[in-house]
């Protein structure tokens, strides 16, 4: 599913890459940027966390001119006198203006690096509102955001991811090169698909998806144990011949209450002892009237 997502988000799509301190999702983000550039899309990056140099590092190629980096890294809070783009300018009008300034008629793909930076300064409701307006606005075709899930409360992460059409959570894999991606994709019909894939990167940021991880992690291949015959190689005979086996199976075990025994007990056969009882006057003992003199 990762390869499908890399091939293109649908219009109006919102993809979130969730990472943590143990594994950075920026590399995957760059893969998405790379894929979009190769598809001849205009990509606008709102760069808060890393510098332009660092983001463009490794993304070579003729299509790099389609990548527009909006510098929100050097002064995101307006601490100097002429900031390029501050975090407070992150609203639907501000971003739309920014995108329309440099883009051609085709709607662009907006990449936000990172949503966590914005969420730290602008509250989740405002961020969600802006994202929703941008999706509907039309200036932006698709949005890809990087979110550091361990920097926010679960509720915040949940609310922002709820708006996304796809969420990829990355984590370190078993081997050094590999990483695990847990993907949740919501289609327009409402169907939710989930998948887990192991992937790694090639030099040019293309993603190589390996096999799905097995449920039990490192599964040991169990060799089939050949059943050993315990009755072989003995000095005495433990085997049964056919007649012996038949007799064994026919044998009724002494304390097992089988159906035959039950019928034998209930219906006594002919010739067996019978008990005849005639109640004696002395035997007629009424517990409640021992002297038999109550007129009841």
């Amino acid at each position, binding site marked *: 599913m990762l390869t499908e997502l890399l091939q293109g988000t649908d219009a109006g799509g919102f993809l979130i890459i969730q990472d*943590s301190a143990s594994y*950075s999702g920026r590399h995957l983000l760059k893969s998405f940027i790379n894929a979009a550039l190769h598809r001849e899309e205009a990509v606008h990056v709102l760069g808060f*966390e890393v*510098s332009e140099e660092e983001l463009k590092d490794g993304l070579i190629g003729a299509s790099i001119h389609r990548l527009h980096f909006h510098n929100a890294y050097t*002064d*995101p809070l307006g601490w100097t006198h002429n900031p390029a783009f501050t975090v407070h300018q992150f609203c639907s009008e501000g971003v739309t203006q920014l995108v329309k300034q440099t883009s051609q008629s085709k709607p662009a793909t907006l990449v936000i690096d990172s949503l966590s930076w914005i969420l730290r300064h602008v509250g989740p409701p405002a961020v969600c509102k802006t994202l929703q307006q941008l999706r509907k606005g039309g200036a932006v075709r698709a949005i890809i955001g990087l979110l550091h899930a*361990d920097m926010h409360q679960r509720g915040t992460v949940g609310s922002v991811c709820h708006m996304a059409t796809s969420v990829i959570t990355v984590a370190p894999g078993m081997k*050094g090169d590999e990483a695990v991606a847990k993907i949740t994709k919501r289609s327009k019909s409402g169907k939710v698909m989930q998948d887990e894939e192991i992937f790694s*990167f090639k*030099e040019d940021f293309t993603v190589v998806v390996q096999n799905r991880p097995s449920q039990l992690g490192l599964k040991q291949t169990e060799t089939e144990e050949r059943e050993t015959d315990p009755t072989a190689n003995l000095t005495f005979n433990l085997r049964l011949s056919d007649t012996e086996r038949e007799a064994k199976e026919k044998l009724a075990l002494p304390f097992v209450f089988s159906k035959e025994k039950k019928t034998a007990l209930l219906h006594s056969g002919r010739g067996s002892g019978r008990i005849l009882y005639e109640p004696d006057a002395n035997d007629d003992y009424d517990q409640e009237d021992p002297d038999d003199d109550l007129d009841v």
Partner: protein
Amino acid sequence: MVTMEPIFTDSSAHPERLSGQLHTGRVRLVSDRQSDASFLIHHFLSFYLRARCKVWFLGLVQSFNHYSAVSQRLGVSLAQAKEKGQLVFLEGLKESLSVLIPQDTNTGSKAMDFLRDPAVGLKSLYEFVRSSVSSSGSRAEGAEEWGPLVLLVDDLSVLLSLGVSVGAVLDFSHYCRATVCSELQGNVVMLARCDGEEEEGDGDDEGSETLLKGLTHQCSLTLHVQGLPTGFCRDIHGQVEVCWRRRQGDGQSTQKKLFQYKVHDKGASFFAPGTSSAVL
């Protein structure tokens, strides 16, 4: 090639050794959990001074004399470096006196102004760092030329204790990174400390854990110092987990490495787990 510069005495286990080349534009986070990583700060301080870099030291927890005494043991004279202009030292403890005990003849810098109102944030501290770091570019005639700038911060967690919010500290470290690494092509080394066990979930939002996670996201190399999981040992003082977050240019895939260390009088030695000289 090398991004890890500590002195390896039993270094046969490591492929990284000191190279003549110093990387620039890197942020290194030194952190500890229930341990004391300040020996790494002393190490980096003396290392960069010896490598003839211009060092800017933001010392918030100890006095200048403390660092000077330790550096003397490591073979570097801080007073001399300061005189030559190689080292610029902000003594946080001394500066904070001018805020805490205001006097009329107050010519102190605005660096520690956040102590007055921690909610305001660290913008003034950043401006102080920026102005002195930028002004160091304009040297007097005949002054020595130094290598790339290094900003050392000891330490960021104390700012949390002083009432500054986690967000403000993260903003401050971001701006330091933007100025020193990207603009001035220098390096940044920061120390952040943690007291408790590693917590899961969204319990304490304004804690040292969140700060540590936020700083980890910002940096390219983390050195996490912890005690040995098995307990106290006389010959091995603890372990350092080195984690490379950004991929190296050569596609180096190793992301994490664990070393054990021992702090001596004259520095620290690092070795692969199980290869301590006491054991071999």
